[in-house]
């Protein structure tokens, strides 16, 4: 924070150069609602959950939601901002070695922020429409690509269960071919790392922290239950924007 207050307007030029060097990941992250502008340096901030911590029970416990949001997501935000400041400084100095070295921290923490920001919107309490199957053009597209919503769920559950270690399973849209895809990413890699034209519609966090307190080592049960609070409305809106 102290560093940030030192940044003058002039140093903004350095920042935009920095975001150019650090791939489209950052520009995507910078477009998120959870970003705040503070004295020139745009940093990320933790977005509010659009529902209470306990609102997704019994599918996901309040304990998990609170830790996941307040601790895990907050840590990604904090470390992303830290890396961003270091990147800014290194860019001003023309310290290429440090700029390169920071990429992994930016990818991991920035990715963590991007992914979780989407994840919260992907979920909704049952009384607010969580779990209601997709309608409209997305529903139709799913039937075309996968046969049925059930078949898609089965496919995503299988890929999520088979994923080694930590990561995400995604329903994405290729905005050029307008095709729906199911894919997985490791650790906190956002979907865009699998293809520059991919837009995430739904992401399921299969890190152990997303389910361990409730489901322990039985990841398939978590995957089965999360669909009961899936916010298809959000996915449908994103799809609609891209395929009007």
């Amino acid at each position: 924070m102290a560093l940030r207050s030192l940044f003058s307007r002039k140093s903004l030029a350095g920042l935009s150069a920095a975001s150019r060097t650090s791939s489209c990941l950052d520009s995507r992250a910078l477009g998120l609602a959870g970003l705040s502008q503070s004295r020139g340096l745009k940093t990320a901030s933790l977005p509010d959950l659009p529902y209470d911590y306990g609102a997704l029970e019994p599918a996901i416990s309040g304990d998990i939601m609170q830790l996941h949001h307040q601790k895990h997501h907050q840590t990604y935000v904090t470390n992303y901002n830290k890396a961003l400041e270091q990147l800014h400084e290194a860019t001003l100095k023309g310290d290429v070695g440090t700029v390169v070295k920071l990429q992994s921290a930016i990818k991991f923490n920035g990715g963590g922020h991007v992914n979780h920001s989407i994840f919260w919107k992907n979920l909704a309490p049952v009384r607010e429409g969580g779990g209601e199957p997709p309608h409209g053009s997305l529903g139709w597209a799913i039937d075309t690509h996968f046969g049925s919503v059930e078949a898609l769920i089965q496919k995503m559950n299988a890929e999520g269960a088979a994923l080694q270690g930590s990561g995400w399973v995604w329903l994405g849209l290729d905005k050029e071919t307008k095709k729906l895809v199911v894919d997985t990413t490791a650790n906190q890699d956002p979907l865009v790392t699998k293809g520059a034209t991919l837009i995430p519609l739904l992401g399921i966090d299969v890190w152990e922290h997303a389910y361990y307190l409730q489901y322990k080592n039985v990841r398939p049960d978590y995957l089965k239950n999360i669909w009961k609070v899936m916010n298809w409305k959000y996915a449908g809106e994103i799809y609609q924007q891209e395929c009007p």
Partner: protein
Amino acid sequence: MSSCNVFAPSCHLQVFLANDSCHALYNLKAPPFMLPSPVSSISLAFLFCDSASGCTAKKQSSPFDRRRRASKAVAYFGLKPPPYQLDALEPHMSKKTVELHWGGHHRGYLENLNKALAKDDVLYSYTMDELITVTYNRGNPLPIFNNAAQVWNHDFFWESMQPGGGGIPELGLLDQIEKDFGSFTNFREKFVEAALTSFGSGWVWLVLKREEKHLAIVKTSNAFTPLIWDDIVSKYCLSRRLINVFFQPIINLDVWEHAYYLDYKNERAKYVNAFMDHLVSWNTAMGRLARAEAFVNLGEPNIPVA
């Protein structure tokens, strides 16, 4: 055919016999099929190294091959319990965590491995180390790799801890650490840092780099283990692998979230500090280091005195 590593939990005894042109490896290990009580079988593997024409490996068919075909064997590797009670690491690692980690995760890897082996005629009679090296498939791991490596990693992990562990190692190991890291404090700092900067699931290792006789801290993600890093060598001369594992693991720390989440939630730092202060078994580490150093000589293998 490569060696069953002397440190591998699946290996209880390994004896090298050597003469001018031939190294024979007698590998006494847990039976590769299910038996009601712990019974050992001896599977014999002969490795021939012809100095004139390079190395060739030949595997003698196991005396149990026929029996295996005759019986409907369903399990190949057994679940090895930690060398202490499940609540013995309390309060630093709860009984609940160990029960779930060992009885759930570790068992899960093992059962999946055995299931996969039941369907695979080729990998059927391999030792755990061979399985890991072979299924690593020179950088394109086969599905079976994850399960085999995770079984090995967990066996190694349970033995890397002991009740009342932690603190500072003694004599030889401490000397080596001070020589290679400057001071124990510096080593501890580096090890903790490695554990905290691991992006995602994985392991942190203290290894002995055998060529340099130098300790180092390395990180691996998911199921990967330093054992596979000598694979390049085994490509050229299979038998060299017997005595030439480049990165000999001394200690490992599980930094998958399941290893600490019930006890420490998101606070991995607390878990890592508890490991360093109360859990890590420097006794085990000392033994592993001594054995690793005993085999550093790359000429004729040293024959350990029984």
